[in-house]
């Protein structure tokens, strides 16, 4: 098991290292010169442009630029925003809590509702199954920004249950503000998790050991819990992990639509303003979170089913 975790960790480090090079290279090759936007105004003088290029090392060769960025990152300083003139750590620090809360909120909704829908669809009758399939299909078809418009129209403008925009202050007020964004994020993922759950539970229900347990006269709930859900868990956990990891990237849409001050809206805003330093740091952070969450899911699954760890070793 220890060997399995170490191997997984090595994979994470390699992935993040490659990602850092790809992210930096992509932005280096992106069309347009950040200096022009940073100079602002409508007629930047050559002197001003040269000044900006020197300040941000934009005039140095690629390896030198990449190295100065990487050494800054490794020493815990991702630099200062070119546009906002604030340290990147401060910008991320001010928004991290909101995004984590939003992702956690959406993840809980997705996992609880998704697994519940899936199990009910698998064990319930044909009508229940059909009804849930229709609901999840509709949810799947609605992209987050469309869901945002609908949710605002129904719950904020028409019913006034929730605020239209903003991040709120304090825990309950923040939950109140983040409910609609979390629901907007939930749609497609919820359908995905519930479909996988339904398929896995169905497959387990048809297995021999479940039939044997039923014949032994065990109560229905016990059979479901001990024999069906336990065996169906690993694929569901794996899918859920990928879902939660993906949520970090997906929050951008919901945060923009609901005027939530999180990392996603910071990424969108920084990209639009060519604030390369912030975009680099945020992209790498999102990749790292994605890879780490996936690793944790693999480890969790291996703990649930030790055979997985041994398979990986073979």
């Amino acid at each position, binding site marked *: 098991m220890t060997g399995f975790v170490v191997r997984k960790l090595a994979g994470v480090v390699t992935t993040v290292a490659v990602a850092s090079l790809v992210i930096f290279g992509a932005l280096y090759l*992106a*069309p*347009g*010169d*950040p200096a*022009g*936007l*940073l*100079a*602002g*105004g*409508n*007629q*930047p*003088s050559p*002197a*001003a*442009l040269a*000044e*900006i290029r020197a300040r941000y090392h934009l005039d140095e060769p690629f390896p030198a630029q990449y190295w100065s960025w990487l050494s800054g990152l490794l020493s815990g300083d991702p630099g200062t925003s070119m*546009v*906002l*003139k*604030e340290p990147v750590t*401060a*910008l991320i620090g*001010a*928004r991290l809590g909101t995004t984590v809360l939003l992702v956690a909120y959406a993840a809980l909704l997705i996992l609880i509702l998704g697994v519940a829908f899936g199990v009910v669809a698998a064990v319930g009758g044909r009508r229940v199954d059909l009804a849930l*399939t*229709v609901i999840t*299909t*509709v949810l799947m*078809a*609605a992209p987050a920004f*469309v869901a*945002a*418009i*609908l949710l*605002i*129209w129904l719950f*904020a*403008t028409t019913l*006034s249950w929730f*605020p*239209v*925009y*903003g*991040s709120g202050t304090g825990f309950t007020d923040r939950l109140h503000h983040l409910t609609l964004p979390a629901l907007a994020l939930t749609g497609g993922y919820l359908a995905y998790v519930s479909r996988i759950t339904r398929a896995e539970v169905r497959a387990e229900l048809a297995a021999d050991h479940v039939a044997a347990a039923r014949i032994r006269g065990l109560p229905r709930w016990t059979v479901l819990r001990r024999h069906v859900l336990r065996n169906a868990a690993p694929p569901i956990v794996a899918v859920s992990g990928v879902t939660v990891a993906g949520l970090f990237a997906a929050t951008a849409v919901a945060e*923009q*639509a*609901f*005027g939530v*001050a*999180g990392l996603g*809206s*910071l990424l969108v*805003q920084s990209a*639009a*303003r*060519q604030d390369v330093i912030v975009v680099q740091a945020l992209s790498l952070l999102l990749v790292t979170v994605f890879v780490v969450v996936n690793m944790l899911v693999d480890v969790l699954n291996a703990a649930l089913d030790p055979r997985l760890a041994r398979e990986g070793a073979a």
Partner: protein
Amino acid sequence: MKLISGTATTLLLGLTLTACSGGQGAGPAAAPAITLVETTPAATGDVAEVTWALPAGEPASLDPARTGDYSANTVGTNLCESLLRLETDYSTSPGLASGIVQKDPLTVVITLRDGVTFWDGSPLTADDVVYSLSRHMDPKLASYAAHVYANVAAIEKTGDLEVTVEFKTPDMQFVPDLAGVPGAIVQKAFTSKAGPAFGTATGGLMCTGPFRLAGWQSGQKITLTRNDTYWDSAGKAKAAAFDFVFLTDSSTLTSALLAGEVDGVYGAPVGSIAALQRSDAGRLYFGPSTETFSLGAVAADGPAADPRIRQALDLAIDKTAFVAGVLKGAGEPLKTFTPPLSWRGSPARSVYDAGYAALPDTSKADLDAAKKLVTEAAPSRTALVIAIPAGDQSLLQTATIAQAAARQIGLDLAVRQLQPAEFAGLFYDPGLRQGIDFIATTGYLEVPGALYYAPGFVLEGAAFNWTNYRDPGVTANIVGAVSETDPAKSAERFVAAQAVFAPARLQITLAGSYNRLFLNKRITGAPASFSYISSAWAARVGAP
């Protein structure tokens, strides 16, 4: 199954359309008539707190040297005041300066008002003014207003309350520019101590305005509080606090206005005009503006450099249809790139008005004349490229309209969307303009002055003269206009030049848009004119 999901999606989309446009049935003809007002009814009482939206998003900085766009201006002009004040009719009046005199073509004398204090109580001095103006000339600072100071030779203190500006070449646009952010005054001691952090969320500001910067939560809001020791008691703010929130999504912004969560906005979304006009949460006002939509020729060679091709494209586009389609009726066609509001407050207004009235009117399309011009010009190629900044919906519509019009006169106009940095680069890097014939842009004047645009477009080697336009008569008249201290004579020379360069369509000006202001019914007093862009407008907002 497929059928159900299809129906569900259709239902969703149907709802969405209703949600954001409030019914598409009413065409532009059925829309309520638009009346223009310069101001809204004056406020009679104080109000505790106002929440105001910034549709262009969070400002990058509030340092006047880094202020040059909608968001930063909307907030910053209530904090850092300028030497002159901009009125709703685009005339100017004394601000922190009690008077500014153009002594001769090369000398401007600024006399400061006595008794002005910064937020910390310290008096405004000539040193602060010299420091504030000189900052824009420092290449290290790379001020957005650097071009305003391009012709300045020296800025010196010539008395306790007097500052004199000497010029290398005459520049009659300089004095009106001081009504905007380029003439904003900051405290020398605080600014030099704050360094690069000045004007940021952590560095703060020190100015003289009716509001103080009380807080800036990165990504969430900027809070201003009333300056209770404001030097101009008549102009004291009526709101105790102003919260600026950043709402870039048009649909969310509209919902927040309708729900009363946001009290007001400048630049209300064009797509929501009908919904906002029907709302009983507040009122949508339309005011005069200097904002324009235009197509600019960027190539020094090829078809776009031929005035006949530009005139043909101008004649092929129906400006009235453009106003109805892109601006939903909230605008009007313009005859040239200098909008009339820019001289409305000038003592020589009648000269400018007569000159404008005499320009040819091309607001209606004339395809026969346009085709004739194309035949005459016999362009070397009919495939042209128009560039727009990616993601700008109005400009995409504009480019599409231009494309359709071009097709009717045998020109094939391809639309190319550029990332913001690439698009910004077009303005200073000729290399990036390779392979592009036209750009679609919006622009505005934040200060008065008929001479704001023209020199940059028509003089040889000027910043925006990308087609290498040259006309000795125009050059002589524009140089004469920027050197002439008598307003009437300056206006005559400008008008004479305009009569020649306007028909050359260096810019194909499509329309001027009206300023769109929405106010919740609990507040009033904000100027409806675009003059808000350079004035302490928030101080007037209070209870009805």
